[in-house]
C-alpha cells in the first residue's frame, strides 16, 4: 500500500477563516433597474457558495457584478486586495471556432495584469499549470483539441485554466449546464475536492438544487417572484420559513443525502481510508483529506473518499 501524498501544492494557502469577499446591500441590474433586493453576504475560504434561482432571476447578472464585468447599481462590494479570482465561464459562450489544444487553453489562464508581455512568465508557472491539470485530471487530454471534448471534459479543462493562475477564489457560471447527472455529480465532486485541497473559496451559479444541496456549504437563493434574496449556510436557508414552501424539501433532501453519505463513510472509515490510498498515490489532488476526519456527520465533510476515482474515467 502506497503512502498517501501529503505535500502541499506550491501556492499560498489562506487560513480557513479568511474572508475573501464581502457584499453589503449590493443591488444589481441593468439601466438603473434593480433585478433583486439588496444582497449581503461574506465569502470565506473553503466555502462553496451556490447562487440558485429560476431562469431570469438575476443569477448571472449578480455573478458578473461580483466579477467586476458589470457595475453595481448601489451597495458595496469588497474583494480582499490579494484575492486572485479564477473564472470559469459558461461553456456555450466560448467560441469553439478558435483552434486550441487543451494545453493551450490551460496555459492561456496563467497571465494576470500585464504579465502577458513577459515572455518567461509561462515558464515560471509550468508547475502551477501541471498542478492544475493534475488537480482536474486533465493531463491525459493535454494534446487533444478542446472543441472535440465532451461537456464534462471541457468543464474540467476550463477549471484547470482557472486554477493555473493559482486563484484564491474560483467563480463558475453554470458549470454543469448541458450535462447528464453523472457528469454533473463528478463536477461537483471535483469542486468539493478542490475546495479542500487548495482551500479556496468557490462560488457558482446553478439551476439544479438537489446536487447543490448535497455539495454547497452556503446558498444565495434568488427569487424574483417573491422579491426575495436569502443568503447563508445551507441548513439555515433550508429551514428558513420563506424558503421552506418552495425549496425546503429539495434542500433538506440534499442535506440528508450528504449527511447519510458521510455517516456511512465514517462507519467504514478504515476500509475507505485504505481504499483511497490505493487510488490516490497517482493523483495529488486527494492529499490533505485527513483533516476531514475530524468532522462528525456534519455538513462540512468533503467527498473525496468515495469519488476520488470517478473523474478518472474518460467521458
Amino acid at each position: 500500500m502506497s503512502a498517501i501524498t501529503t505535500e502541499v501544492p506550491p501556492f499560498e494557502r489562506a487560513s480557513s477563516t479568511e474572508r475573501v469577499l464581502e457584499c453589503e446591500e449590493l443591488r444589481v441590474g441593468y439601466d438603473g433597474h434593480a433585478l433583486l433586493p439588496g444582497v449581503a453576504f461574506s465569502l470565506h475560504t473553503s466555502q462553496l457558495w451556490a447562487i440558485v434561482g429560476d431562469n431570469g432571476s438575476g443569477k448571472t447578472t449578480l455573478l458578473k457584478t461580483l466579477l467586476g464585468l458589470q457595475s453595481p447599481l448601489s451597495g458595496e462590494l469588497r474583494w480582499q486586495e490579494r484575492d486572485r479570482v479564477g473564472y470559469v465561464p459558461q461553456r456555450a459562450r466560448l467560441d469553439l471556432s478558435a483552434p486550441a489544444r487543451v494545453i493551450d487553453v490551460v496555459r492561456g489562464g496563467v497571465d494576470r495584469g500585464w504579465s502577458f508581455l513577459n515572455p518567461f512568465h509561462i515558464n515560471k508557472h509550468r508547475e502551477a499549470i501541471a498542478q492544475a491539470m493534475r488537480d482536474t485530471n486533465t493531463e491525459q487530454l493535454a494534446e487533444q483539441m478542446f472543441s472535440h471534448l465532451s461537456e464534462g471534459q471541457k468543464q474540467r479543462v476550463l477549471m484547470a485554466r482557472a486554477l493555473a493562475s493559482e486563484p484564491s477564489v474560483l467563480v463558475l457560471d453554470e458549470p454543469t449546464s448541458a450535462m447528464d447527472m453523472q457528469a454533473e455529480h463528478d463536477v461537483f465532486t471535483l469542486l468539493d475536492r478542490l475546495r479542500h485541497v487548495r482551500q479556496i473559496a468557490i462560488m457558482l451559479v446553478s439551476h439544479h438544487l438537489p446536487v447543490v444541496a448535497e455539495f454547497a456549504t452556503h446558498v444565495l437563493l434568488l427569487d424574483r417572484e417573491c422579491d426575495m434574496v436569502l443568503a447563508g449556510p445551507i441548513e439555515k436557508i433550508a429551514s428558513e420559513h420563506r424558503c421552506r414552501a418552495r425549496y425546503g424539501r429539495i434542500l433538506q433532501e440534499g442535506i440528508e443525502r450528504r449527511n447519510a453519505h458521510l455517516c456511512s463513510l465514517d462507519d467504514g472509515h478504515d476500509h475507505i481510508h485504505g481504499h483511497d490510498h490505493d487510488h490516490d498515490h497517482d493523483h495529488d489532488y486527494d492529499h490533505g483529506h485527513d483533516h476531514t476526519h475530524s468532522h462528525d456527520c456534519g455538513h462540512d465533510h468533503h467527498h473525496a473518499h468515495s469519488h476520488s476515482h470517478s473523474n478518472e474515467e474518460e467521458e
Partner: protein
Amino acid sequence: MEGDDSQVSADEFEALANALEEDEAETSGDGSGAEAPEPSPDASAPDATQPEHAGTPELSHGHDLTHHHDHGAELLSGDPGFVDPEMSLSTFFNSWDLFGDSAMAGAVAGGLLGFLGVYVVLRRMVFLSAALSQTASLGIVVAFFLQISLGVGFISPLLGALIATFTAIVALTLGVSQDRRDSMLGFVFLLGASGTILLGTRIVQEIQDVQTLLFGTAVAVVPGDFKLLTGIAAVIGALHLAGWRGFVAVVFDSEDARVRGLPTRVIELTLLMTIALAVSVSTRVLGAMPTFAFSVLPGMAALRIARNIQRALWLATILGAIAGFTGYLFAFLFELPVGASQAFVALACIPFAEVVHRIKIALAKSP
C-alpha cells in the same frame, strides 16, 4: 471596391506614359515589330488606359524603365496571348531590381495581413478593411469639402482619412460590445460610402483625387511605398510578437481575460489600430482587392488547419506571403491583373486548407 489596383498616381502615370511613348518610338524605328499591349480585359479596371499587367514592365517602373527596356520588349514580342513560362520566369528573376519591390510588397502585405487576418476572422470582422476604406474616403471628402466650401485648410486630405479611420476604430473598440460589432461594421461602411457620395457632389473636381490618394496599385509599387509598408510591418510584427498572449487571450475569451485583470481595452484598441494601420497602408500601396483578400483568406485557411492560434498565426503569415508573391508572379507570367491574381491565389488557400484538413482527419482515423 472601386479604384482597385489599377490606380496609379497622376505623376507616376504621366512619367510612365512619356517613357512608353519614347520607348515605342524607338522600337518602331528599328523595325523590331514590338506592339503595345492589349488593354486589360479586367472589368474592375476603371480606366482602360491604365493597364495593370505585371508583365508589362514599362507600366511597373517608370523610374527605371529605360534601364530594363530590353526585358520588356522581349516579353511583349510575338503573340501577346502566349508567354513562354520558363523564359518569363527567368526574365522575372533576371529583372529583380525592376519587379522585386512590387513582388516583395505583395509578400510583405500578404504576410502582415495574413497574420492579422487570423484575428479578423476570429473576431468576425471580415468587412473591417472594406469599412475602413469607405471611412477613409469620407475623411478625405470631408477634408476637401472643408477646404473648398468653408476655407478650412489645416486638415489635409490624408489627415482627414487618418482621423476618420481612427475615430471609427475607437468607436468600434470602446463604444460597441463585441456582439454588436459586426452590425456596427455595416453601419461604418454605409456611413462612409453614402457620405462620400453625398459630399462628393459638392466637390466634383476633387473626387478623382480621393481614389488616387486611397488606392494604390499592386503592379507598380514605388520604393518609398515599399519601405513604408516594410517599416509598418516590422513595427506591427514586433508589437504582436511581444504581446501575442494578450491578443490571443482577448480573442479567445475576453471576459475571462478581464477577470484576470488583463488590460483588455488597451489590447483590443491596439489590435484594431494595428489592423487599421496595416489595412490602410496596404490599400494605399497595393489596392483594395488584394488587401481585402489577404486580410481574410489566409487567416481562414490557417484556422482550418492549425491546432492552435499561435500556429495559425504563423501559417497565415506564410500563406499570405506566398499568395502575395506568387500572385504577382502569375500576373507577370500570364499577363493578368496583379490585384486580382493575388486575390485569386489567396482564394486557393481555402480549398488547400480543406484538403489538408480532410487528410489530417483521415490520418487520425486510420489505425
